[in-house]
């Protein structure tokens, strides 16, 4: 696939992610922070998000597996995940965290388990999509092209 085609695919794919609510404007803000002094900034932050989220999801699974569920602890973890997902623009993950916190408040274990499933699902979706996006970007750059996300998104 030649560069222009790849660039078009990239932009269409990104547009779809915004349209379908996977990403929100904070994702564009992340790109605005990236510059020549740190051209890998977005990838770095998103990688941190992946690590952080996986750790939190594991902690949530363990916490819900306990005989006496500590809802405060669970709420604290979900709050963290909500914060991180909001900070990178992962809208659907953030929204699933909001529902999760409601189940925590209601001290509803069943509800929490369902919410955790939902959060896991949304997380895996955005992870796959962002990884695909970054892969495509790499190929474009390797082929001598460039992505001007900021200009396009605005």
């Amino acid at each position: 696939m030649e560069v222009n085609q790849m660039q078009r695919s990239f932009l269409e794919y990104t547009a779809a992610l915004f349209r379908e609510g996977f990403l929100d404007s904070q994702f564009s803000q992340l790109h605005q922070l990236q510059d020549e002094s740190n051209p890998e900034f977005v990838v770095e932050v998103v990688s941190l998000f992946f690590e952080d989220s996986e750790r939190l999801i594991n902690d949530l699974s363990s916490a819900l597996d306990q005989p006496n569920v500590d809802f405060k602890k669970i709420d604290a973890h979900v709050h963290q995940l909500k914060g991180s997902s909001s900070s990178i623009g992962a809208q659907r993950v953030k929204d699933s965290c909001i529902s999760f916190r409601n189940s925590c408040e209601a001290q509803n274990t069943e509800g929490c388990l369902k919410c955790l499933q939902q959060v896991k699902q949304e997380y895996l979706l955005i992870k796959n999509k962002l990884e695909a996006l970054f892969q495509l970007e790499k190929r474009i750059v390797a082929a001598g092209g460039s992505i001007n996300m900021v200009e396009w998104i605005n």
Partner: protein
Amino acid sequence: MDAASGVSSIEGIMEEPHVLAVDDNLIDRKLVEKLLRNSSCKVTTAENGLRALEYLGLGGGDRQSSVNDNASKVNLIITDYCMPGMTGYELLKKIKESSNMKDVPVVIVSSENVPTRINKCLEEGAQMFMLKPLKYSDVKKLRCQLMQCRG
């Protein structure tokens, strides 16, 4: 020191204000650091209130010192509200209680828009309350406020 060099040293500080950013979330710390650095600020980050107080020389116990280099250089403190252990509000109180740090503006940030929380912080002397995640326009606002503080 004559008037001319006095003015330029204030401008020097304002060209590159030193900000202490406190947040328990690693991603948020990274973001706020980049945002501030891109806006010509010097940045120090701390992952919790205790570390922030230690940096400012308000740590307490045998770490406490009345003269602290770090404290005199910090022009602005931005702290998250929800943090385990010491909240941003508790950190704000400690800063306002200290004789040498009480005049440094403290901005509280939060992902949640809770009016009682906001009022509580403002009453305790917070300069501003802002919603996370911060944007360039927020930092611009802060820098304008900072200029007014010194001016």
